[in-house]
C-alpha cells in the first residue's frame, strides 16, 4: 500500500529469515569445537545474521538448558573470564537434522528462483 508498511513488511521478513537461520548457524559454528561467546558474536556479526547481541544470549541459554549445548568457564589472560560452548550429542543430532532441513529448503528455494528467472 504505502511506502511505510512496505518497508516494515520487508524489515519484518528479513528479521524472521535471520531468526530462522540463527539456531542452525550457531550450531554450525559450534560444530568446530569449543567456542566462546564473543567469537560466536563476531562470526555471526560478520555473516550479518545478528545486528545486536541481545538476541543471542537467550538463545544460548535456552539451548544449554535443553541439553543441546554444554559450557565451561575459562579464565582469560586479558579481560574477564570466558564462557566456552560446545555441542553435546543431542546438539550434534539437532545440527545434523537442521542441516538436512536447510539443504532441502535451499534446494527448493533455488529451484523456485530458477523457475522465476526463466
Amino acid at each position: 500500500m504505502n511506502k511505510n508498511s512496505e518497508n516494515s513488511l520487508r524489515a519484518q521478513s528479513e528479521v524472521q529469515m535471520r531468526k530462522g537461520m540463527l539456531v542452525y548457524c550457531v550450531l554450525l559454528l559450534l560444530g568446530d569445537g569449543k567456542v566462546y561467546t564473543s567469537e560466536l558474536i563476531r562470526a555471526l556479526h560478520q555473516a550479518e545474521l545478528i545486528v545486536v547481541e541481545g538476541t543471542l544470549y537467550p538463545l544460548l541459554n535456552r539451548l544449554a538448558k535443553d541439553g543441546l549445548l554444554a559450557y565451561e568457564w575459562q579464565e582469560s589472560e586479558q579481560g574477564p573470564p570466558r564462557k566456552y560452548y560446545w555441542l553435546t550429542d543431542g546438539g550434534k543430532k539437532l545440527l545434523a537434522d537442521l542441516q538436512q532441513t536447510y539443504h532441502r529448503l535451499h534446494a527448493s528455494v533455488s529451484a523456485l528462483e530458477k523457475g522465476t528467472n526463466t
Partner: protein
Amino acid sequence: MNEVTKIHLGRQAFTISVDAHRELKGYLDAIKRHVSDEGVVSEVELRMAELLAERDVKDEQVILPADVDFLKEQLGNPKDFAEDDEQETADQPTDTKRLFRDTDNAMLAGVAAGLGNYFGVDVLIIRLLFVIATFAGGWGILIYIVLWLLVPEAKTSSERLQMAGKPVTIDSLKEVVERADVGGAARRANNSLAGPVNAAFRTLLKVVGVCFVVIGMSLLLGLATAALYVFFHNSSIVQDNLFPIGIKEHLLVYSAAVVGILLSLFVVLFGMALYRRKWPIHAWITGTLIGMTLIGMAAGGALAADVAPHIRDRYNANLHTTVRTVQPFSAVDLSQLGNGVTINYETAPTYSVSLHYYDHPNLNAIKTSVKDGTLIVNSRQYSRAEGCNGICIDDLYDMTLTISSPNAPTVDDPYAPVPPVAPVAG
C-alpha cells in the same frame, strides 16, 4: 560532570561517570525485566566488560555516557533479551505511563511537572492548583511534601520515557538523550506565557523559602532560650505543685523539646529546599530525622497520656476556697481591684466573700472590709507571680472572689462587673 563512582561489571572494577552509571543501570534493569535467568544478566555484564576492554576502557579510564551508548548499540534493545515472542508481547503493558518526579522541568522537586506529565496537563495549571491549595489551609504544601517523599525521581532515560508514557526502545531512548540537551531548553523558551509566570513562581519560591528559614530559625532560637531558662531553674518547668517532677515528666519535657527542635529544623530545611529548589540533605538523614520526630511524638504522646491524670489530680487537690464573713453591706467598691482578680456575685442568706484560689497565694494581699455599708475590695497588693517560680501560667494563679449577699449590691465603679439582678431572698 566530573562526578564518578565505582562499579563491578563481570567481576571487574570500573570507574564510571555518574551519568553513565545511571544510564547503564537503567539499561541493565530493563534487561533484567525481560530475562528470567540471572545467568543471562551476568553473562551480559561479562560481555560488557569485554566490550569496554576492546574500547580500551580499563584501569585508569572512566566509563562515559558515550561508552554506554556504544554498549547499548552492540547489545540491543532490552526486549531482544526476551526468551520468546509471547513474553515480548506480554511485556508491552509495562510501557504504560508511570508517575515520576520530572526534575528536568522542575521548579522545586518536579512534583508538579511529573503530575503534569502523568495527567497530560500543562505544568502551570498544576502549579497554580498547588498555590491555591496552599493558601486554602496549607494543604498544598502538605500534599507537595508527601508526593516529594513518595514519588521517585525519573533518573534514567527509560524512566523518563515511562513518565511520558512512551515505550522503552533503543530509538526512543536515543531520542530522549538527544532531546535532553536541546529540546528541553527550546520547549521552555518557546512557551511565551509560561516564561514570565514561571519566573514569578521562582521569585515567590525564594521569598517563601527565606520566610520559612527565618521562622524556623526563630523557633529554634526560642526553644534554645527556653531550654537554657529551664536549665538555670533546676529543671523546675512549671511550679512543682502543678507539675510534680519525676522521671516521666522529665522525659516528657525532653521528648517535647526534641520534637519541637526537629520540627523547627524541618521548617528551616523546607525553606532552604524552596530557595535552592532541592532538598538540602541526604535522603537517609531525612529519613532518620523523620524517624526521630515520629518516635519523639509517640513517646511524648504516651507519656503525656500517662502523666495527665496525675497533673489534673494535683491541680484539683490544690484548689482551695476560703470564706470570709463580713458586715452587712448594700454597695460594693471595686475601685482598688488589681490584676488577676475576678469577681462573681451570688445571692446567699449571709454576707460573705469567698476566695477561690490555686495553691498557696498570699491571702493577706486581698483586703476585704466594710465601711459605712460599702464593701471595699482591695487587691492591689496581690501578685500572681508571688505564688509561682519557674514558668508561670498566669491564669492559673488568678483569684476568683464570690461576693455573697441577700440583696444585689450596687457597684460604684463603672468599670467593674455589674452584679446580676438577684432575686430578693426569702
